[in-house]
């Protein structure tokens, strides 16, 4: 049965074959329908041509996507920049007073940890936890030192202009 006959007959896979070609190639039609489409395209010149064209076009898109991957392979990860911004964002959420309180607590914890020295037990854990906390702040300190915070301020101002968070 040809495409036109199928169309005029108003039934079978052919009536909508061209309309569903793309979904079929994308693996988005049920298996039974895929079989009907395949059988139709084998016997219908118009749908066979449309299928070949669609496959070529998908091939071109996939080659472009693959080439982008190759180009991407030589580029640095986004992670360091994302990490710097999310660390600074956590700092910003604390606010200046909380930051001062947290810094004071960290310093006090560190002092206790040093005074207690290598002894095991709950106070030793406090000392260790405080040291880890102060490491986090040294990250923020390095951002301030290298001027990243002022750059972030600009970014946040731009965000505020753009509107709310998504989604």
């Amino acid at each position: 049965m040809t495409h036109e006959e199928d169309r005029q007959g108003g039934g079978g896979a052919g009536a909508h074959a061209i309309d569903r070609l793309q979904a079929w190639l994308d693996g988005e039609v049920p298996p039974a329908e895929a079989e009907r489409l395949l059988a139709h395209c084998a016997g219908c010149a118009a749908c066979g041509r449309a299928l070949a064209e669609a496959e070529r076009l998908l091939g071109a898109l996939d080659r472009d996507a693959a080439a982008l991957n190759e180009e991407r392979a030589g580029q640095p990860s986004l992670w360091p920049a994302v990490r710097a911004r999310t660390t600074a964002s956590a700092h910003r959420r604390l606010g200046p007073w909380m930051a001062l309180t947290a810094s004071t607590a960290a310093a006090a914890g560190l002092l206790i940890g040093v005074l207690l020295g290598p002894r095991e037990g709950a106070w030793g854990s406090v000392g260790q936890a405080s040291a880890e906390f102060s490491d986090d702040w040294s990250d923020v300190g390095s951002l301030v030192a290298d001027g990243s915070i002022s750059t972030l301020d600009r970014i946040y101002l731009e965000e505020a202009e753009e509107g709310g968070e998504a989604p």
Partner: protein
Amino acid sequence: MALTARGDEEALRLLVERWQTPVLRFLERMLGEREEARDLAQETFVRLYRAAPRYRPRERFRSWLFRIAGNLARGRLRRRKVLRWVPFDPFRHDPADGAGRADERLEREASRAAVRDALGGLPERQREAILLRRYGGLSYREIAETLGTTLPGVESLIQRGMEGLRRELSRRGVEP
């Protein structure tokens, strides 16, 4: 995502490492500009981190991620004031493959440039649907969630978009 929502840095690092390439591919073809795509990809992950506490596990992660990326891309396009594609500039991009012969590479690049420009000429939603499918690897259901439309709506967007691409390439005399 649950770990990221609790501020687990390692969980966020894994998400960035796993998803940065498809997000970059999608944004580069949405915007037509590599550096801008990199900026917005970075911004996508920062916003993902901030929005993580609001993430519902029932929602598909890819839909969530690409919705953020898509919103940012559309915002940037609006900010440009001109909803036009930035034409491909070979001097702004590195060659994909240095191993092939020069003429073959040029031909391949010309074909890619034609595809890119044809994509850029599509209506925005058709382009976004095609890019989410071919460059982001999303299913039709995920695209429907990302774009806030139905499954038949996605199928129609992609079908019409591909038809538009085919017509445009044919008009340019380019065989894909």
